[in-house]
């Protein structure tokens, strides 16, 4: 019998800093504060940490973090590629390391000063060589432009409308309005505000885009056995997967045979194959929402509906509390904070602990996904 990740490890601690447009602390300090908060939540001393995982565009190395928090000897560390596509893979890598005995206490984290810092797409020296030579000279400068291109085609092929995208933005905003830690707490959204807001990359308007945020989050992973002795109710890592589809290219799939079936499809196949349950058994989902169109594309990729049905799925309050699939219950990247998707991981843990500000009653299973469009990752959590 081959080793399996299934429920072999658990997330036992989560931590976060404030989320804001501008925080005074450095990215490194924010990382350390979130990690120490997560370890305190777990009741584990920082000197016991022997594994770290982060993802690219993280400015603070594990060397700096380990030194600052007083970690012990570290025997596993990894940095996953493709920015926001790597968020869930940090949990997957640590789960694998702990399950196979390479380490005992793993910490994953994300720290960003995107609210007050420079925007990555302005760094043309880094962005222009391959694959940027095929897109950026023509003015596809920002991720919003690249995803906007897919969104337009999706709308054309499947009759998706801006109202469908509004359904996504509204569900996330409604949850943020219930979450005092969210940047958009007490800032309701209306359909009129959405429909009259300025365009960022037509067909995507202001409210189709995530928030620029300063902030950091972290979580702690240990074996299921160790988890039983921790302070918090364990949230088990049931299944984990990464997805880099055949012939995929960089930020988007424009050169695949089928650009509308992105990395989510690849990750999903492996994720479900390893799981004891399927999409119909997911109580709540945290789906990477740097841009609203990623939600219908992901709903299809992860099997909540058929190809081309993701937009229609959002109708009738399906994504709201009490709906068919409540999503992004902390507000997501669109309305809680955009910390490259890490807030979705911690929110999944909150749901399965039963302590979310928008708690789905008796939630026992949660899907968390990373960025779609880029090589991605996903995890299934269970209480």
């Amino acid at each position: 019998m081959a080793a399996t990740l299934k429920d072999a490890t658990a997330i036992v601690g989560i931590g976060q800093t404030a989320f804001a447009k501008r925080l005074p602390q450095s990215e490194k300090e924010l990382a350390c504060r979130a990690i120490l908060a997560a370890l305190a939540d777990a009741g584990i001393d920082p000197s016991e940490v022997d594994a770290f995982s982060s993802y690219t565009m993280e400015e603070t190395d594990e060397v700096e973090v380990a030194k600052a928090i007083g970690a012990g000897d570290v025997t596993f560390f990894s940095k996953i590629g493709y920015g926001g596509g790597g968020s869930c893979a940090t949990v997957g890598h640590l789960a694998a390391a702990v399950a196979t005995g390479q380490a005992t206490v793993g910490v994953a984290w994300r720290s960003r000063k995107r609210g007050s810092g420079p925007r990555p797409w302005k760094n043309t020296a880094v962005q222009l060589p391959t694959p940027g030579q095929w897109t950026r000279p023509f003015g596809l400068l920002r991720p919003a432009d690249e995803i906007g291109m897919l969104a337009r085609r999706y709308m054309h092929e499947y009759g998706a409308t801006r109202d469908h995208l509004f359904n996504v933005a509204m569900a996330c905003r409604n949850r943020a309005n219930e979450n005092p830690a969210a940047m958009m707490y007490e800032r309701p959204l209306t359909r009129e505000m959405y429909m009259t807001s300025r365009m960022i990359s037509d067909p995507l308007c202001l409210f189709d885009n995530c928030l620029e945020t300063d902030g950091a989050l972290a979580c702690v992973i240990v074996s299921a056995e160790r988890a039983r002795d921790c302070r918090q109710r364990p949230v088990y890592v049931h299944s984990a997967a990464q997805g880099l589809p055949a012939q995929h290219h960089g930020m988007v799939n424009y050169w695949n045979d089928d650009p509308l079936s992105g990395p989510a499809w690849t990750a999903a196949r492996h994720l479900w194959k390893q799981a004891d349950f399927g999409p119909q058994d997911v109580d709540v989902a945290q789906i990477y929402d740097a841009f609203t169109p990623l939600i219908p594309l992901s709903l299809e990729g992860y099997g909540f509906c058929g190809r081309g049905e993701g937009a229609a799925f959002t109708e009738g309050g399906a994504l709201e509390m009490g709906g068919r699939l409540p999503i992004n219950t902390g507000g997501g990247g669109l309305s809680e904070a955009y910390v490259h998707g890490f807030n979705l991981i911690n929110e999944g843990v909150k749901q399965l602990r039963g302590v979310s500000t928008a708690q789905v009653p008796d939630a026992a299973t949660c899907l968390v996904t990373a960025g779609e469009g880029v090589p991605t990752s996903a995890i299934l959590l269970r209480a």
Partner: protein
Amino acid sequence: MLLPVPDEDGTPFWEYAARGELRVQACAAPACGRLRFPPRPCCPHCRSFDSEWRLMSGRGRIWSYVRPHPPLLPAYAAQAPYNVILVELADAPHIRLAGNLVASPDAPLDSVDPARLRIGARVQVAFTDTGGTAVPRWLLERP
């Protein structure tokens, strides 16, 4: 404006563009010959490292488009909102090239009325000199 920074695999594309030719990399193995884009060292179908650059007709259709608005890099903000189109080539519909739909080869990126942008519209390549580098632009077949 940003100029392409070609890598070793992409350089021939831009060299042919400078001569006014739209060429796409193709496998040179006699039994294969399949086109591929973006360019790369070897054929994903037969793994041959022999390649050639095949001349395209320069005709295509708009597969999708966006209209970026500021905040943008200054040279682009000056023309915003402009269009970026993704063109599927008539000769090889699975090969798609990002570009801009313009009223004439040297016209600015916002020179076509947005009402004319339509998925499926037929377009024809032209080449524009931007700071010493020729980049493909696209013109509507029926302006």
